[in-house]
């Protein structure tokens, strides 16, 4: 019984969530730069454009969505076919950019004018759903304890991000220092080679003129 109000709130909450339009066979990707060992939860809902009514249907019957998650070195973490509405999870093994792609499995070869999908999307990084827990709380004490757990998760996520930020900044500093030293090194090398070429040119021309009895 507690699942029913939760399921309905899931439906209602997504219908007022952030959304965008895509063509039927188009793939839409989102980049998430996250630290390691982080749980990412995504919830989506698809609506199909009804050509006759010139409006979006409440859902997209018979249409599935491919959800693919790849890391920055092309390792596939998740690749699954969901229905028109669904929820997906993945945990990152290594820090970095993860690319979440959504594509519908529409088999229509030609998407005639006006055929598009509306996708509602919600992506949560590092924290579990507080609403579901609150809905199941029997009394105030439970509610307080759920909220405290959530606060702890929030703090842990912020600390994780901070550590990851430190790594990235070190990377950044390394690149800056490399660029700085490379500029100097290239200038030195070019000066030396320039001088060497100058000496070589003068020597070879002098020998040439002497050989040709012009000097």
């Amino acid at each position, binding site marked *: 019984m507690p699942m029913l109000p939760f399921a309905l709130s899931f439906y*209602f*909450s997504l219908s007022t969530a952030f959304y965008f339009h895509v063509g039927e066979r188009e793939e839409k990707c989102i980049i998430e*730069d996250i630290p390691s060992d982080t749980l990412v939860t995504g919830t989506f809902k698809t609506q199909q454009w009804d050509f006759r009514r010139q409006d979006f249907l409440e859902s997209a019957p018979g249409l599935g969505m491919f959800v693919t998650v790849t890391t920055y070195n092309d390792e596939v973490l998740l690749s699954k076919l969901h229905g028109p509405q669904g929820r997906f999870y993945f945990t990152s093994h290594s820090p970095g950019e993860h690319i979440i792609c959504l594509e519908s499995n529409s088999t229509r070869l030609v998407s005639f004018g006006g055929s598009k999908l509306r996708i509602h999307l919600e992506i949560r990084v590092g924290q579990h759903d507080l609403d579901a827990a609150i809905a199941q709380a029997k009394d105030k004490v439970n*509610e307080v304890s759920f909220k405290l757990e959530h606060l702890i998760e929030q703090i842990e996520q912020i600390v994780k991000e901070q550590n990851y930020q430190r790594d990235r900044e070190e990377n950044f500093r390394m690149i800056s220092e490399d660029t700085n030293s490379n500029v100097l090194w290239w200038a030195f090398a070019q000066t030396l080679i320039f001088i060497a070429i100058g000496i070589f040119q003068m020597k070879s021309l002098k020998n040439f003129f002497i050989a040709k009895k012009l000097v």
Partner: protein
Amino acid sequence: MGDNIWRPCPVLLLAGLLPALLPGTASFTPSLDSDFTFTLPAGQKECFYQPMPLKASLEIEYQVLDGAGLDIDFHLASPEGRTLVFEQRKSDGVHTVETEDGDYMFCFDNTFSTISEKVIFFELILDNMGEQEQEQEDWKKYITGTDMLDMKLEDILESINSIKARLSKSGHIQTLLRAFEARDRNIQESNFDRVNFWSMVNLVVMVVVSAIQVYMLKSLFEDKRKSRT
């Protein structure tokens, strides 16, 4: 409490920040956040929509993280289609609007660029989404607050709510700093590649030019010798 769940509560959680509107909590500070990073190919335009209730506040902040020129066109329209903000070739921007009821549309336009794709980061901050709910919560507080334990728990809940709001703000600032750093790092990486590439080209050109010089001088004298004989 059951009643509030059945209402269409706009509960948005994105990127580590929390839904502000929780049924049964008194005097909560509703503040919702969401952020996205995506790649916009050259010559394309991408639009996003956000449903908003009346008298809430919508703040949009965007930044171009990567792509030659680091600029993009931005367009924000109200639910009736009226243009609220139109910016051209900017690399970042912040806009806050007091909302009416309906779907707000904002678009990023990369049609002016023919070859370079842009990586765009944007953040939506929604405030006061549950203003209408708050009077009801106060009324409920009077009914349930007669028990001493309940009142103490309400105090604890309120502290927790304020801590949560502040943590959300910290997370939000962290996301922003991350975006700034990502952009600076991208610029620096392209600097590094540029320095290496053009220095190498410079060196090769110098060597080739000097070899050609020597060769041409020598060839001038060769011809003269031949014409003499």
